[in-house]
């Protein structure tokens, strides 16, 4: 590697990584516009920005997945290019992606071997995995099969895979979005140890409290440009959010709940069985959602949320018709269409590909679920004029940024598509709304609008059920909170009587052993 050390004063080591004027253009969009970024050895540096601000593009260029159109990259002071991820790993750059790439039916060691460029002998590799996981407090059994592992453990596999290559720079993309607060706290300990050993960590997250607790430096991107660099410890979550958005943040206010009305949804002793060995069966789940209230169901993904959603929407029929009662009617054997007629509206977790058809226009997507409760179909014929008008009403009422009702669903950003889908469901004036992950991956502005709409719907007399992994969100929205763990649902608690710590312990499976009221266990942030 050629040395450029002479350009620096001899006493200051060169930055670990320096980006100068990095620009990347995609057809129709400038993803990164002359981005400058300096990462020092041993620092935990946050990369902040709303969806579509260009964070992913930037880290993909650092990791060699994409290549910049212009600009220079300096690795430890020397100009370099990263041709591909293997090249990045050779330099000492590791990355933990938001979505894991693990094979369920292979063991931890086998999975790690697949991701290494020189795995060596399997038994030696297992020993190395053990020693690394002990050193950094990442408990992991190399012989176990991945399908036995919790999400937090799977993430450890990915981290250990990076650590085995002695990275000098570790990129973490939204690492805590799938973790309980306690798991997140353990991850932070590991990251602090790594940083103390001189490894640089580039940390991407939209959880601002985490960034304030963990990072010493933050670079903020907006619309592909660096709009600021700051020390997050000196900022508030609100000021960071406003930097990201470039506008003032309005937080939704939750007016006090009136007396809860009649039960709109009763789930009684709901159990499911599935042919799929990787599905989580629901076990004796019972709860009620009453008119005018929001019930939140917390839990780490994969604990039965998908099964609960399908059993409520009617996409999966349940054995006992009485175990799902909507508006007093036993609905366990009714399909989605009949349940909609009873007053159910539904927002699935998967927006593009379930909640909306990517290739179809917004007016056709308005028809997708709107046909059941809006007069869009007459005598078997589609009333396209009305579907268009309905789409326009949603777009106006929920400030959806789109090129009119003709825009394809896939052309919308995640936040705008979610506003459209939630608007489509709410404008049907449902008696009961079930929402999965309402603001997952949605930028702060859209999330606030969605929260406001959900609270408004509940206060107008509808029953709302929110299933989410985001505890902050559930504490903003819910009147009561339950936790789903391994297919079982805890009793609900009024939100004002519980704490993030207690819910976090329930998410980790500590049912029936309530901890002391004051949290001895420190909160993640």
């Amino acid at each position, binding site marked *: 590697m050629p040395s450029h050390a002479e350009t620096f004063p001899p006493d200051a080591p060169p930055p670990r990584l320096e980006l100068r004027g990095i620009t990347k253009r995609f057809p129709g969009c400038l993803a990164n516009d002359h981005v400058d970024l300096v990462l020092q050895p041993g620092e935990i540096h946050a990369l902040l920005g709303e969806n579509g601000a260009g964070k992913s593009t930037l880290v993909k260029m650092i990791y060699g997945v994409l290549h910049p159109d212009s600009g220079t990259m300096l690795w430890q002071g020397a100009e370099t290019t990263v041709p591909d991820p293997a090249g990045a790993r050779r330099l000492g750059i590791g990355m933990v992606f938001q979505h894991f790439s693990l094979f369920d039916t292979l063991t931890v060691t086998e999975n790690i071997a697949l991701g290494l460029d020189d795995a060596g002998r399997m038994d030696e590799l297992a020993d190395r995995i053990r020693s690394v996981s002990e050193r950094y407090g990442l408990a992991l059994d190399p012989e176990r099969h991945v399908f036995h592992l919790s999400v937090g453990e799977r993430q450890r596999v990915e981290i250990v895979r990076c650590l085995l290559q002695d990275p000098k720079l570790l990129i973490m993309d939204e690492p805590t979005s799938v973790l309980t607060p306690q798991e997140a706290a353990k991850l932070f300990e590991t990251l602090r140890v790594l940083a103390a050993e001189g490894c640089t960590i580039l940390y991407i997250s939209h959880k601002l409290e985490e960034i304030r607790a963990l990072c010493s430096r933050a670079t903020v991107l907006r619309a592909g440009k660096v709009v600021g660099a700051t020390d997050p410890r000196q900022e508030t979550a609100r000021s960071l959010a406003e930097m990201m958005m470039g506008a003032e943040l309005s937080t939704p206010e939750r007016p006090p709940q009136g007396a809860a009305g009649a039960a709109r949804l009763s789930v009684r002793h709901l159990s499911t069985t599935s042919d799929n060995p990787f599905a989580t069966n629901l076990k004796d789940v019972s709860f009620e959602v009453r008119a005018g209230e929001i019930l939140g169901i917390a839990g780490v993904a994969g604990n039965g949320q998908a099964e609960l959603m399908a059993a409520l929407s009617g996409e999966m029929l349940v054995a006992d018709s009485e175990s799902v009662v909507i508006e007093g009617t036993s609905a366990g054997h009714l*399909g989605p*269409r009949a*349940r909609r007629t009873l007053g159910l509206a539904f927002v699935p977790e998967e927006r593009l590909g379930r909640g909306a*058809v990517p290739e179809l226009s917004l007016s056709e997507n308005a028809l*997708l*679920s709107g046909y059941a409760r809006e007069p869009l179909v007459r005598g*078997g014929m589609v009333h396209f004029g009305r579907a268009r008008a309905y789409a326009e009403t949603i777009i106006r009422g929920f400030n959806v940024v789109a090129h009119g009702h003709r825009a394809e669903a896939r052309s919308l950003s995640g936040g705008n598509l979610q506003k459209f889908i939630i608007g489509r469901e709410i404008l049907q004036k449902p008696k009961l709304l079930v929402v999965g992950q309402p603001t997952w991956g949605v930028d702060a502005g859209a999330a606030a609008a969605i929260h406001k709409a959900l609270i408004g719907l509940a206060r107008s007399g509808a029953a709302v059920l929110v299933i989410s992994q985001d505890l902050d969100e559930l504490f903003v929205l819910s009147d009561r909170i339950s936790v789903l763990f391994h297919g079982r649902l805890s009793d609900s608690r009024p939100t004002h009587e519980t704490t993030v710590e207690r819910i976090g312990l329930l998410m980790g499976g500590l049912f029936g052993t309530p901890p002391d009221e004051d949290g001895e266990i420190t909160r993640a942030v």
Partner: protein
Amino acid sequence: MSFIRLEPRGQASKTMVYVTPLLAVALTLLSGFILFLALGFDPVKALHAFFIAPLTSVRGLGELVVKATPLVLCAVGLAIGFRANVWNIGAEGQLTLGAITGGGLALAFYGEGGWWLLPLMVIGGAVGGAVWAAVPAFLRLRFNASEILTSLMLNYVALLLLNYLVHGPYRDPDGFAFPESRLFEADAVLPILWSGTRVHLGALFALLAVAGGWLLIARTFIGFQIKVIGLTPAAAGYAGFDQKRIVWLALLLSGALAGIAGMGEVAGPIGQVTAGISPGYGYTAIIVAFLGRLHPVGILLAALLMALSFIGGEAAQIAMGLPKAITGVFQGMLLFFLLASDVLIRYRVRFGTRRAVA
């Protein structure tokens, strides 16, 4: 690492979707030119005999319509299924069954016909085709058996059934044991629409199928459900569309249309039930459906083009002494070039290894 890779282009161009069928036709003609040259024929003369000469006489134009009629009827039904990911490859067998049931009615009421016989034969043909298509529908929904295989295999069963019938129960008692039925009486023959040609009432059915198919696809709620199921099955489940109902509808409808096409052949240009009622209309209709972009109007144009390949193939055999296989060669090339251009509007070809590209 492979040396040829396909890279997604991102957005496929809307114009190209309509240009590629024309491109495929042009490439087919070019390849035909080279093929004729290599075989030692005068390519200009051969292509003229194949594609131009049939269009210069009233009789030729009439034949074009006669051949396009069953293609349109089969392809409109297939296209509705293909849009919903229902892959009916059995139009040939359903057409054969329509000929057996429709033609069977003509023979059953031989000598006692009336104005009611033709409508009855139309219904009989439709029911025969639909029943044949109901088998793959049932097998798919009950046992999750691929309708591609089951419908294809039933084509051979239908053909053997037809062979049995013309050698046995359907055989003309005064026909010197030739494997064919009596000639139908006037009450059982579709009226000629264009005198001097063999264009029959079936052509009108084909036009009605085009109009009805368009209405179904573009305007009805069923058509919308078909579209959603075809594009994103998960979204159809979310919306509560009944996918089983759509599978039944697609197969029964395409079976009925193919059955009407088969009835139209025996009650139209053939005028009796024989062992050879179709030169592969049911298979060619698959090409027609894709060449027409699964759109009824596109199918009408594509069917005329494919009909020309049938007639031109015959004409070229007679005029130039070209082998019979020439028709199949041209149809195959057309489908090949269409599918290839489809891939190339969505992907671009890269040569060399990944690293060389980066």
